């Protein structure tokens, strides 16, 4: 049956009529789309490792300079909607999320949501900082300490943003790292000690900010060491996206937030 004039495309038989059997697909419980910064290297692995079976997690990237500053974060805005529009445009995502803590603060949640709605109409829009604040509220935490990898120019905006939303920011400390490629190389052990060091006796909870950090690996250890709830960017983002999508699974290994709320 091999054609003797390869390349003509004329000698191949028509396919037989078949009736494929369909099911609800691998992602039958929910589909969540994440808009990532171009440099992002941590969120994909964190989401794919921890999202329950039956929940699809899908990624697209938005243009962003390698250096994380207020200026570069602000410049990302219109790329968010475009990227969201590239995630399963043939079906309605349950949730579309902008996966950048400092970016959602600098651009502002309302602007981020408008962009996500433009690209992924019908999906519930959320952002990383939105998930963080919902998580802190669920945990009943109002007085918080914040540890970030950022430059102080970003810390100031994040602290102002959260204070304006009603949180009492007892302290915010950054590591003064500008490049995403360096943030992903901060060791989890260092983050554990950093989180414990930033903690204050009067804090209700510790928040470790930034989707690039491998903080998801030390949540339980930091909660055990400090005896108080720990929220990290990717933990809060996944929790928020799952709960928005109607997925109420309690997961272990990701702190009190996922175990109890």
């Amino acid at each position, binding site marked *: 049956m091999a*054609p003797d004039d390869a390349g003509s*495309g004329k000698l191949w038989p028509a396919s037989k009529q078949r009736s494929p059997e369909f099911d609800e697909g691998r992602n039958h419980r929910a589909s969540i789309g994440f808009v990532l910064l*171009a440099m992002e290297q941590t969120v994909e692995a964190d989401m794919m490792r921890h999202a329950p079976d039956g929940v699809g997690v899908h990624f697209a990237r938005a243009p962003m300079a*390698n250096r994380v500053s207020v200026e570069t974060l602000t410049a990302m805005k219109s790329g968010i909607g475009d990227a969201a529009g590239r995630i399963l*445009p043939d079906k309605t995502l349950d949730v579309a999320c902008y996966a950048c803590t400092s970016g959602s603060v600098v651009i502002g949640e309302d602007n981020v949501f408008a962009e996500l709605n433009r690209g992924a109409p019908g999906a519930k829009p959320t952002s990383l900082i939105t998930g963080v604040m919902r998580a802190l509220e669920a945990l009943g935490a109002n007085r918080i300490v914040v540890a970030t990898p950022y430059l102080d120019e970003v810390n100031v905006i994040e*602290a102002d943003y959260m*204070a304006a939303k009603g949180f009492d920011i007892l302290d915010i400390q950054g590591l*003064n790292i500008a490049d995403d*490629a360096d943030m992903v190389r901060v060791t989890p052990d260092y983050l554990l000690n950093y989180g414990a060091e930033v903690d204050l006796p009067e804090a209700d909870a510790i928040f470790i900010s930034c989707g690039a950090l491998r903080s998801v690996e030390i949540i339980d250890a930091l909660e055990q060491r400090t005896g108080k709830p720990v929220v990290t960017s990717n933990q809060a983002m996944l929790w928020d996206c799952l709960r928005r999508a109607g997925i109420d699974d309690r997961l272990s290994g990701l702190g009190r937030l996922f175990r109890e709320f």
Partner: protein
Amino acid sequence: MPTASVSKGDWPASKPRAVRFDGGRHDRAKLGFVLLAMDQTSEDDVRGVVPDDIGVHFSRVTMANSVTVETLAAMLPHLSTSASLIVPNGTLDAVTLSCTSGSIVIGEENVCAALAMQQPQARTTTLVTGVVRGLKALGARKIVVGTPYLDEINRIEADYLVEQGFEVLDIQGLNVEMDEDMSRIEPEYLRDFALELDRADADAIFISCSALRTLDVIEEIEQRAGKPAVCSNQAMIWDVMRLAGIDDRIEGYGRLLREH
């Protein structure tokens, strides 16, 4: 209560700290995948097979919802932009286009040139390049091919495989046009489809398309057919890993990843 204690912007400067760094979570290699906008299958397949200390990073390319020769060809102008968004700091080791039919319709050289434009340090490849390399590594010359595609795509794929030196004993498609439907075809149906297409004189079975969940049943197809089976995502993962210098043998996804 909150803001009473601090005025806006009145935050302390961060203390200097001696941060400890390591090579990062993915210090062995970083792999990039450009997906069709509708892709629901590749991300899971790739992360499920590739070892955790290798980074797998995804970007999506604008594409019409239906899979035809025309819509596949229209992707080309968007490929380099999409590839440029995957960790654009010169550390990506290899990058591929995760679309079998698209790599054929656009052409491997065109795809690789587009991927390389903004990622000049990365090894570039395409899904169908991986399939051809995989089949050759397995020593297969006579093959049967199962696809979800329309016949207009099957003909182009069969012609392409013949040009690459294979004897295509049969090619059969399921006439499915929408990616979303392709991703919902039951893996057990794909297994039976593959076994039905198999012929005594075939050296190997190839099930085409990254949207299909063939990876879930590829080992079973091989065992039942008693011959090597290649599917798109298995061959893509193998090809990209090997191009990045990762020689791990991986169990559970057929002879290709176990032995080559």
